[in-house]
């Protein structure tokens, strides 16, 4: 998957977690927490969805990498690069 595809995959996950949220204006550099008020339980859900959908494991000590879209995509890039695009 390319970084753009990874980003699209994260957007899809965010859409299931917060169906009311308008994600078209998401600022990739800003923290999810500030833009969407996601709390630690919501992050656990993102991790769970990554595991379910792409079999990607995110160990607890790496959760800090998931703060913004930018940091999430760069963290996931090596883990998801070999996955075929959907």
């Amino acid at each position: 998957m390319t970084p753009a595809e990874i980003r699209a995959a994260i957007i899809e996950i965010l859409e299931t977690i917060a169906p009311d949220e308008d994600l078209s204006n998401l600022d990739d550099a800003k923290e999810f927490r500030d833009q969407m008020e996601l709390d630690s339980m919501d992050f656990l859900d993102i991790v769970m969805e990554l595991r379910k959908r792409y079999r990607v494991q995110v160990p607890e000590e790496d959760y800090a990498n998931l703060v913004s879209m930018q940091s999430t995509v760069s963290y996931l890039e090596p883990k998801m690069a070999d996955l075929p695009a959907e």
Partner: protein
Amino acid sequence: MYDSIIIGAGMSGLAAGIRAAYYDQKVCVLERHYTIGGLNSFYRLRGRNYDVGLHAVTNFTPPGAKKGPFARLLRQLRMKWDDFGLSPQLMSSISFPGVELQFDNNIDLLRSEVAKEFPAQIDHFDRLISSLLDYDDLEQKHFEISTRERLQEIITDPLLVEMILCPIMWYGNPREKDMDWGQFCIMFRSLFLEGFARPFDGVRLILKKLVRKFRDLGGELKLRTGVSQIKIDHGRAVGVVLDSGEELTGKNILSSAGAVETFKLCETDEDVHAHTTGQLSFVEAISTLDTYPRELGHNKTIVFYNDSEKFHWERPTEDFCDVRTGVVCTPNNYCYDEKDGELPDGIMRVTALADYERWRNTNQDNYQAEKTKWFEAVQASAARFVPDYRSHVIDTDMFTPHTIHRFTWHENGAVYGATRKWLDGTTAINNLFLCGTDQGFVGIIGSIVSGISMANQHLLARS
């Protein structure tokens, strides 16, 4: 072997079940009654739909709000704001003899009412608002501070203290006379800083969505399946014995049956927590009218009334009911969507304090006679605070503490559960947890949030 066994298909148990099922657990929800909903269920009688408990969904925040328990639970259950179909209240009041405070879903109305009726107290009232604990700061040690003491330090007019306590105790205080400060802060936020709303179709809409979600995710719901025992082996819960005698095994057990009720299922020798059993239960007198309440000049959503300057929040000791204080709810008086139209009937619901023991121990004939007598007394009491609707009543129903116990198995029919709360949900048995009323969050939204957070902390973390 289940990953999680959840006892009770009320709001908290169903919400917990959804969380476990999202995480691909093998999970079942066991419910003794033949239907879902527990303390906030629904039924049909003589061709009309009734809600068991729904007056108002508290914690209402408008679409787009990202903070607060309601927004949080929508994300955690992956639901849309529209799924709850909530319409906000018109306006409510706290009515004492000669003085009334109106409020709606914007705190400014209540502030201006306090400024008008208690001009010397408005700064104190603002201080009260800024001293409330946030939902996230709730720890056992702050939680159990005396609310009366705390309020008297801030508000110096005793009448205003009583008027603030009245609605807040009515909507969520399990203790007699005084209230835990933590519980007060939760309830103050949920009533006054957030607000009241109602789904046009009543609580069935919310419950059906929860059940559908749970089942679609692969969760098992078993109705008419009471738990008669929680099996303990070497300090661990290993499973449950059902009323039928069948046994189920599970890695973790989460119970919404109540704390004392759950400890009794464990059949340990010590009945350590019996003294914390809640004492407060209610009767509710529900009247269907031949007209809409607004035609009688009644435009309020909820009226919390008390007939003297002192508010008494205690189990009645002298008689079956205590009708000095009560709550009148008018389900018609919400801002429903135009496409929904009007509810089919005008409805007035009045709640009063009641003594479980008396209702429980009276014989069958007398029970009916007392019901008739107290229905009249409750309505007569309410008629002092809302337009007298008694000549318009075409159908009635009433439930008592005995009814509540019979259908939810809560000790004493205590609607808000035990007098102390188990905020972290843990028990002496390391894989048995509590959620719902006795974990600390009450009400529809509160118990859903409780189910979610206890499942997150105790069921998911361990899988």
